Each structure stands twice: as C-alpha cells, then as structure tokens.
C-alpha cells in the first residue's frame, strides 16, 4: 500500500516570504505522526499543501497515493481535516454545522458522529459565535472524525481543550490508529505529541530539521545533570566538552544538558569537587528546544 503522505522537495513561497522549503515527509498507513514546530515554522502551510488548498511552488506531494491538486475530490473524500485556526460560521449552531457537513459528505449513517458528540459533550444548540474556543474546537473534532476518514490531518487539535478532553482526544487518536487509519497531527507542544505519536518531524523556519521515531529521539535526546558545589565555580570549565551546554548557574549549582557519553563530563566535574550530583533521564523537551533555539543553525542540528 502507498504511504498515507509522501512529499518530496515540497516548497511553497509567498512572493518573497518563506513558506516551506524542500519538505520531505513520509507517513505510513496506520501511523500517528507528529509534526512539531514553533508558531510560524510552516506547519499549517505544509498541511494546506497536503489538502490541495495551496499550490506548491515546486516539489511533489502525494496523499493516499494521489496528487491532491489533480485528484482533490478523491483525496479529500477519504480525509478528515481540522484547521488550526478553526473558524466556523458564527450564526449557525453546532447542529446546523454537523447537519450540513454530513449532508455535504453524503454520509449514510450518523451513528458514529452522534457517538462523538456525546463523548465530547459537544454543545449543539447555541450559535457558534456564542461558544468558547474549546467548545468550537469540539465541533471541529467531530467534523474531522465523523466520516471515519482513512487519514486525519489535524492542525493543533487540542488547543482550547481542557486536560480531561485532551485525554479523551488522545484515546480517540489511539483508537483511530488501532483501526488502521492514519493520523497526521501538528503541534507546537512536545508533550502532546510525545504522548501519542509514533514518529515525529520537527520543522523550523520552513525546513524539516529532523524526522525520527519518538523512542529513537528520546535515546539521542540530551540528558540533564546538576552539580552542587560548596563554592562558586566557573562554568567555563565545562565549555570545552563536546555535547555539553550550560543551562543554569545559580547558588553554587550548575545545571548542564549533555548528549553522548558522560565520562568526559564527570572527569571535569570531579576536578571541581562537587558536593552533590543529580542526573535526569533523557529529556525530549531539551532536544526539542535545541532544535527550536535560534542560535542553532539548521545545518548544525541536521548535522
């Protein structure tokens, strides 16, 4: 079977403004794929290219084995989309939205849709403009999932949802994947993605800087170690070690992020006679921030 999503050198520019550059993505069927990046990195642009909403400047995109610009109807019939800045029609109620979209999709059964409405306690009777962001988002989730699409493209899906509903949503994603369907999920929050995604791609300033499995990333992620000293210590002593970065230096305590073997670090630290040491397990957050940080160039992180 073809990949759920495959892009190759996908590029989109808006005049002189950067959109995304040379995006290569491969998402297998049945996968939950996380698409991470800070705001403005190009997540929504990539998603709109996948849906055929944007015309690529160059490069290729195939969704469920087809080009969304050529076979848009066929692609979108099998796809569910939750836009990032979900804007519904303010004067219509949730029910009117669901009814119209169900009819437009020629859905034969509304059973699953109604289950979702109940599960997320969706407010159906008030006009959308009177709803909170979270309540609107719930309508958007039902609209994306109700026809049981083969591929779900979700742009920042949990924004506005309270923690309980975020858990419920994570369960829904796992069920969807267990059903053999594919989820492509963008987020700027690592936590959300690492809980549910199998693999992630991180995009920064329009370019993919890394694509890997969550477990693999965790293994290579920087760990944090903290040394406590009885006196002030110059942290410059650590600057010569490969893969070590100073996070904090307060009250005789030095916190470092490091990747690779710990021995060189311990040797330097031992010289300085620390009184205590705490080490923390691999931290994906730290890795994520490494990719986000402005002073790290794309080439460096992509090494």
């Amino acid at each position, binding site marked *: 079977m073809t990949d759920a999503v495959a892009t190759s050198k996908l590029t989109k520019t*808006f005049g002189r403004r950067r959109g995304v550059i040379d995006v290569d993505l491969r998402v297998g069927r049945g996968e939950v794929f996380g698409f991470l990046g800070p705001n403005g990195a190009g997540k929504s642009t990539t998603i*709109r290219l996948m*849906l055929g*909403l*944007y*015309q690529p400047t160059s490069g290729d995109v195939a969704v469920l084995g087809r080009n969304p610009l050529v*076979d*848009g*109807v*066929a*692609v*979108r*019939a*099998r*796809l569910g*989309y939750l*836009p990032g*800045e*979900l*804007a*519904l*029609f303010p*004067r*219509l109620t949730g029910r*009117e939205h669901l009814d*119209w*979209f169900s*009819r*437009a*999709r*020629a859905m034969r059964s509304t059973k699953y849709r109604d289950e979702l409405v109940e599960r997320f306690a969706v407010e159906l009777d008030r006009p959308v403009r009177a709803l909170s962001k979270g309540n609107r988002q719930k309508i*958007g989730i039902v*609209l994306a999932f109700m*026809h049981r*699409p083969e591929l779900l493209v979700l742009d920042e899906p949990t924004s506005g949802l309270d923690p309980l509903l975020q858990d419920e949503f994570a369960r829904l994603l796992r069920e969807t994947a267990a059903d053999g369907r594919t989820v492509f999920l963008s987020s700027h929050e690592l936590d959300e993605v690492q809980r549910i995604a199998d693999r992630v791609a991180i995009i920064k300033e329009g370019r993919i800087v890394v694509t890997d499995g969550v477990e693999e990333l965790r293994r290579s992620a920087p760990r944090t170690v903290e040394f406590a000293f009885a006196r002030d210590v110059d942290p410059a002593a650590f600057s010569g070690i490969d893969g070590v970065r100073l996070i904090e230096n307060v009250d005789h305590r030095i916190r470092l992020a490091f990747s690779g073997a710990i021995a060189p670090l311990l040797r330097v630290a031992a010289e300085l006679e620390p009184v205590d040491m705490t080490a923390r397990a691999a931290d994906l957050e730290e890795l994520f921030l490494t990719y986000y940080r402005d002073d790290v160039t794309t080439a460096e992180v992509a090494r």
Partner: protein
Amino acid sequence: MTTDTVARSAGGAAVGALDVTRLDLRLRRRATLGYAVGLALYTLAVVAIYPSFKGDSSLDKLVQSDPTMMAAFGVTGSLTSPVGWLNANIFNNFLPVVAVIVAIGYGAWCVAGQDEAGALAPVAALPLTRRSLVAQKGVALAAQLLPTMALTLCCVLLGRFFQLDVGVGELVTATCSIWLLGLGFGLLALVVGVRTGSRGLAIGVSSAVAAAAYLISSFASTISWIRPARFGSPFYWAVGADPLGGGLGAGDLAALVGLPLVLLAAAVVAMRQADLH
C-alpha cells in the same frame, strides 16, 4: 472515469451540486430578505403615489429645464407616463443600484470574505472541485438576487390598481436585465476577491467600476463627450435603451448574458490558482 466516480468508488462521495449554494443562501438569508422587503416597500410607495403625480406637468418641465442634473439621478424623458415614472424612481436607479450592492456584497464575501474569516477552508477541504465551488457560489449569487427582483416585479404589477399600467413582457425583460446586471458586478467582485484574497479590495474595485458605469450610462444622453463610452457600461446595456418601454436590443441582451459567463469562467480560472486558507 470522472473524478466523481473515482471518489465514490474510493468510498467517499463528492459534495452535492447545490450543497454550497444552500449553505451560502442560508448564511445570507437575513440580508436577502431584508433587501427584498425593503425594496418591495419602496416600490409599493412609488406605485401608490403615482396617481398624485400623474397629472403634474411641472415634473416634466423640471426634467426639460435641467436634463443633465436629472440624468444624474437616472431620470430621462417624461416623468409622468407610467414607464417614465417607474424608470425615474425604480428601474433606472434604485433597483439596479440595490441589485449591484447586494451582488457585490455577496461576490466579495463568498470567497475572499469567507477565506479571510477562515471559514472557507473546512468547505474547500471537502470532496469538491474548485470549479464546482465557484459554480455553486455563482448559483447562490443569482438565486439571492431573485427575491428582490421578484418582489419588486410583483409590487409594480400592483400598479394596475393605481393607474400605473405597463406591459408584463417589458416589465419582466426590464427586471431580468437588471438581474443580469447585478450578476455581472457580483461576479466581478468574486473574481477580484479570488485574485486578491481581499474582501475589501473586491468591494472597492467592483464598486468603483459600478459607479463609473452608472455615471456613464446616466450622462450618456446629455453629455456628448461621455456618449461614446456608453457601450462599455453594463448599466447602459441594462437600462440605457429603456427595456421597460420595450427597448432592450439583441446586442444589449447578448452583452448582459455574456458578461457574467465570461466573468464566471475567469472566476473558475482564478480559483484553480488560488491559495485558500
């Protein structure tokens, strides 16, 4: 195999041919009814006061004394004849202007406005082609002008009870030509909206073109240097030859029908290249 059958065989159905039209008509329901009722009341008033002005020859003298001034308001010829009265108060100015305003409002909103508000993406992400999306918007545009046109026409027909008798065929022709005029400007706004992605620009550009076309049509009969430009004015095609008096020519009709068709084709082309958000 067409795209539709591919989609159906793949387990999903394409969006119905009028689903988007229905949605937009629902969203514009209040405005559509508001304009229709407002114009109907205005027409009733114009019709009902006709008997008081019917014998007022000073009105005709007014037109003769300053034809250019009166032309600015769409008044030409006799004011006291049934056709002259209706043209001067409804068909040469108020009805076409309202039709154009309604049409430009929808044309600018239906793609650019919805896209700016972020509400178009969920619809554009449905299984439908860009061509179908634009065509359905075009149908919604035509349909939402109809209540205003039909109610106005009915109210004018009531004129029979107020000594205001005009031919039914001419009345239908005049109303249809204004409907086509509205359609043309609405589609112009749609095209500008799709091209620029801006509802404000769509309204601005098409309103400016409409205003120029209106002035050219109005002054064509009284200001000689404007006269040659009249053939480029859709207002002139629609009202210049006095359709209510039986004057709509084949050329005018062809232009009135042709303009929306050309603009609809332009909208489809523009839509295929457009980035939707």
